[in-house]
């Protein structure tokens, strides 16, 4: 494409994006919505100073250089030196009562939305690892020469792909989870892994079948066993070809993980719901949550793209 055309369509794109944002903004004005992004921040990172409270009734002693704070109990006994604080909230000689704030510590804590995001990451990562392992074996079983293995794998794939994930999560949590006494997190990870594995299996199968049969024949003719040929010749090549569809599947996994909030796992989505009821700032919260999902999925697809580039060396 010629360069002036490029610039033209680039600006068309920008105009459309800006117009879309303006429409969103205008519609919120239309329903008298007051945007207040400030309210979301503490739920991401809480910078509010924490109080240091007096453990007993007594007197505060502050050194002249404001560096040490000592609390002397009324009831007698050893004075207590407050060690960690960033600002003293009492004056020298003040009477203090048990539970009074005597100092503050500025302390960065992660807010509930960030905690939810970490939970989402943990769940996604754990289920991804299991999904790949299960999916690899189901995918290999799917093309096994043994009829029983092949049919078992097909049945697995058909059942999992033919039922909604939400229903599977409920079955895992209420039925399998109860039988095996799994906790929520395990049940959530298990259902996501089992679900994603069915799709991974199909990706693995088509990846393996896309490798020309001559590769397996060459490997076997050199004396390799089926397993050696798979491990050294077929799978490394299939792996490269399956990366793009795998990336898509992993991104789906991160998004699908939002469904585990139905079994009361406080993931990013559930955290968002809780924060909405605390802040009454639904638009800001949900936009933030969406952005955080986008960051996670974007980072993942970026990593996989880099891996693809690296593996392209032999092409």
């Amino acid at each position: 494409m010629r360069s002036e055309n490029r610039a033209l369509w680039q600006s068309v794109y920008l105009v459309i994006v800006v117009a879309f944002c303006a429409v969103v903004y205008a519609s919120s004005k239309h329903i008298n919505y007051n945007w207040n992004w400030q309210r979301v921040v503490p739920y991401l990172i809480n910078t509010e100073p924490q109080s240091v409270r007096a453990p007993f009734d007594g007197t505060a002693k502050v050194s002249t250089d404001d560096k040490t704070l000592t609390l002397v109990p009324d009831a007698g006994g050893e004075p207590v030196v407050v060690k960690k604080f960033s600002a003293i909230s009492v004056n020298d000689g003040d009477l203090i009562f048990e539970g009074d704030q005597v100092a503050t510590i500025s302390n960065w804590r992660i807010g509930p939305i960030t905690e939810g995001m970490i939970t989402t990451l943990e769940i996604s990562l754990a289920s991804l690892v299991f999904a790949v392992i299960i999916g690899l074996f189901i995918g290999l079983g799917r093309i096994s020469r043994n009829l029983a293995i092949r049919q078992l794998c097909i049945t697995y794939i058909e059942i999992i792909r033919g039922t909604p994930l939400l229903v599977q999560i409920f079955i895992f949590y209420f039925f399998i989870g109860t039988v095996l006494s799994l906790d929520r997190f395990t049940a959530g990870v298990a259902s996501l892994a089992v679900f994603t594995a069915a799709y991974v299996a199909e990706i693995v199968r088509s990846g393996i079948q896309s490798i020309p049969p001559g590769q397996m024949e060459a490997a076997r003719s050199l004396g390799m066993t089926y397993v050696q040929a798979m491990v050294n010749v077929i799978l490394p090549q299939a792996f490269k070809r399956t990366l793009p569809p795998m990336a898509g599947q992993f991104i789906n996994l991160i998004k699908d993980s939002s469904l585990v909030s139905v079994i009361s796992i406080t993931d990013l989505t559930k955290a968002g719901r809780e924060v909405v009821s605390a802040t009454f700032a639904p638009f800001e919260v949900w936009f933030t949550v969406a952005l955080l999902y986008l960051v996670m999925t974007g980072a993942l697809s970026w990593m996989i793209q880099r891996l693809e580039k690296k593996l392209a060396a032999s092409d």
Partner: protein
Amino acid sequence: MHLQNAEDIIIAKDVDKIYPNGCHALKKVSASIKKGEVVVIIGPSGSGKSTFLRTLNQLETISSGSIVIDQVDMYGKNTNINKLREHVGMVFQSFNLFPHKSALHNVMMAPLKVSKRAKSEVEEHAKALMKKVGLAERMNNYPSQLSGGQQQRVAIARALCMKPKIMLFDEPTSALDPEMVGEVLDVMKSLAKEGMTMVVVTHEMGFAREVADRVLFMEDGELLVEDTPDKFFHNPTHPRLQRFLSQVL
């Protein structure tokens, strides 16, 4: 001839092959091949040449009959087919190099993974073979960076690195541009001179005449003629061979 007293290293008896789709590809094929012998198989397309060659390392199983390789019954109860294949190298029409490995690592893979030989020894052997096939300069290239003729020579080196007793070639030059056929045939000729037992399916009549100890003619799944190249090409008696030769020569 120099081979007269050599022992048979391949003995195929009454080999029948019926593919699952019902295609009767081999009909009672019997052939014996001596140690150090170079046997060329020719015949029209679809006559069962590849099928026969592939039964010799069990890439295809046979429907009935028997095959004995180096005194080991291929279908014996205690026969380890992987072990047997280690000594039967195969070169394919479409090279089938492993595209994710460099040329040198293509050659080194099986000796390392299958024979579990020491890495330094395998590397030395592989480099010597790469030199032998004239590709000392291209060892670190990936297959996609090599010409067809070069790829096929790497494939030959790959098979040789397993120290095979028998080499099978299935139309090794058919996928090559004409100008690259010679370089592959030269490697095969030098291999024949060194006394390698070779079974070669090819349309290169010149190679058959020059290098073969014996030429076999197959048609319709049957082995019709077995003869020295001299009689085979200059005094063919079988009418179907006469017809075939008149078409191709």
